[in-house]
């Protein structure tokens, strides 16, 4: 079995993964956007004032804990998440490329 496992290790986790900036951006954007949208509307349904969530308005200009605000938050979340995801993927790919090149240079 030792030999088999070595065989597995020779086949999997060999190639370095690259992240797709658009896909990761969209994923994070959707999660953030709908996260804010849902959180805001849940607070509204429960009848809470949502003072903590309202602090998001400091960063997302125009956002409030209202239904209209939840839509604005959705858009901000989408944009923010997309940028963060895209940046993470780009940085990851750059560092991974750099490290791979360095590794191949060093044999």
């Amino acid at each position, binding site marked *: *079995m030792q030999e*088999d*496992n070595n*065989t*597995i*290790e020779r*086949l*999997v*986790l*060999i*190639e*370095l*993964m690259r992240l797709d900036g658009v896909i990761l951006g969209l994923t994070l954007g959707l999660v953030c956007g709908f996260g804010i949208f849902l959180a805001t509307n849940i607070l509204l349904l429960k009848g809470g004032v949502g003072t*903590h969530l309202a*602090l998001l308005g*400091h*960063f997302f200009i125009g956002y409030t804990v209202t239904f209209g605000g939840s839509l604005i938050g959705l858009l901000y979340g989408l944009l923010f998440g997309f940028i*963060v995801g895209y*940046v*993470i*993927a*780009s*940085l*990851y*790919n750059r*560092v*991974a490329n750099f*490290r791979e090149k360095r590794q191949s240079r060093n044999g």
Partner: protein
Amino acid sequence: MEQKQTRQVVIIGGGPAGLTAGYELTKLDVQPVVLEQNDKVGGLARTENYKDYHFDLGGHRFFTKSEPVNQMWHEVLSSDFLRRPRLSRIYYQDKFFFYPLKIWNTLSSLGLWQAILIVMSFMRWQIFPFKKEETYEQWVTNRFGKRLFEIFFKAYTEKVWGIPCSELKAEWAVQRIKNLSFTSALMSMFVRTGDSITTLIEEFHYPRFGPGMLWNEVKHRIEERGGQVLLNSQVTRIHRNGACVDYVAVSKNGGEEYVIPGTDFISSMPISEFVKKLDPVPVDVLEAANRLNYRDFLTVCLIVNKTELFPDNWIYIHEPDVKVGRIQNFKNWSPDMVPDPSTTSLGLEYFCTEGDALWNMSDADLIELGKRELERIGLAEAGDVVDGCVFRVPKAYPIYDADYANYLQIIRDFVDGLENFQTIGRNGLHRYNNQDHSMITGMLAVRNLMFGEENELWSVNADAEYHEEIRHDEKQKSVETLKEKITHIFPRLDPVALGLSFGITAGTLIFAATLFLIIMDGGKAGPHLAALGNFVPGFTVTFQGSVVGLLGLFILGFFVGSIFAYVRNLVVLLSARIIHRDIELYHLRRLFDFI
């Protein structure tokens, strides 16, 4: 064309490999001479006939992933090629278990207490396996646990091989289940096999009167096209002149020898026999040939005066206190195997070694033994058996013992040096080939001969089931392509790169957010953001604090990213191993199908 006319091809052996080679040659206008020592063709896949009852020695299901083989079967048998349902079970401790093993059927049939012990044993061997897997016992125990091994693998395997499982090399099982390499295991997933595997489990093809029907028809067609198939013709000597074989000496019905010259020779006779009959032969090669061993078996055929006995095609007998290893119910293979539908014909298979007590037992004693054991198992009353006969099959299985590979290599090196000779088939290659694999070796040998191809016959075996028809270079290419695909499917996340990207993003975000608050908001939301200081010591909503936040979140992000990547890679590796283990177990559960 001139080349074809001047070729005189001699084929030694009228089994699946030899006859397939002969059949292919006649299609290319070459008329070979096929020499068969028995009174009928088919070799290890022959069908014996006793009072119009047909007995398939060993039971040969017809299935293949090789299209040329499949085509040939259909071409020769046409509407006589039946599609039959399959049922096989294991008999153990007066109970029947579905085979291939079904976990819930197995556990429920064994009872609650035994089931608990099996599960505990399985877990114990998963946690503390044998460190080395040299023997069959260690190999199976590490996968199923000791208890399941003892119930379902030990007794039957020891019957088949006649040696304790603790002495049987793990290699046998490894080769038989064929998919041990992770590449081929995954190949079985990605090169779609699921449907065909399901089919193989539930049904199979079968000639109306057994495999002998196929081989008789092939013989007929070879003869129709000008070839010769000589029965009762034993090759007694093979003459070598330098690197070429120039003739074989043949004795018909034990009579005087006569010589058949040839330009090319293809042999499916046991490779050890070939070497012993070769003249001259190097001493070391002869010595190696003497070291190759075989396992034999005999079938006690019983005719029972009952319309129906049991629904299975065959039953594996794991019960250690009877000698019979497997029972075939030929009527369930094909109804035409039996001339009188009110009777049933059974084949009780006993694994033995030529010359041992069982092999030497008289036919009458063997029939009595068969009757007794049949009654002991409870499948039929001894009194219902109305007739019987015995057929012995020498050299049925090449034995993979400790040193066989070294000896085989010596022979192979020598044989490969013979310019006009090719060895094919199960015993010709001393390889555990199925009927279809043997046929492929025959086909490839003809391609080597007629088209100058360099197909590697020694590598055609159960392991190569997924790419049998592909030439060596193409096969290599497809394996390489698959490996490439697997590396694409299971790539690695770079922990450092992900850590850095998380760290930089998180640090920059907190830095920017802090500055944004200071500039835009005069620090009104500061107290809330300042709560981050609980996690990043020294962080405040100030310019200095933003720098501290940058560093703190960078470090935190780096750890989170790196750990995420490590964990994700670990999960991928574990998943790959689980997939491999699942496929391995899947094949192991059907191990006996390959015997």
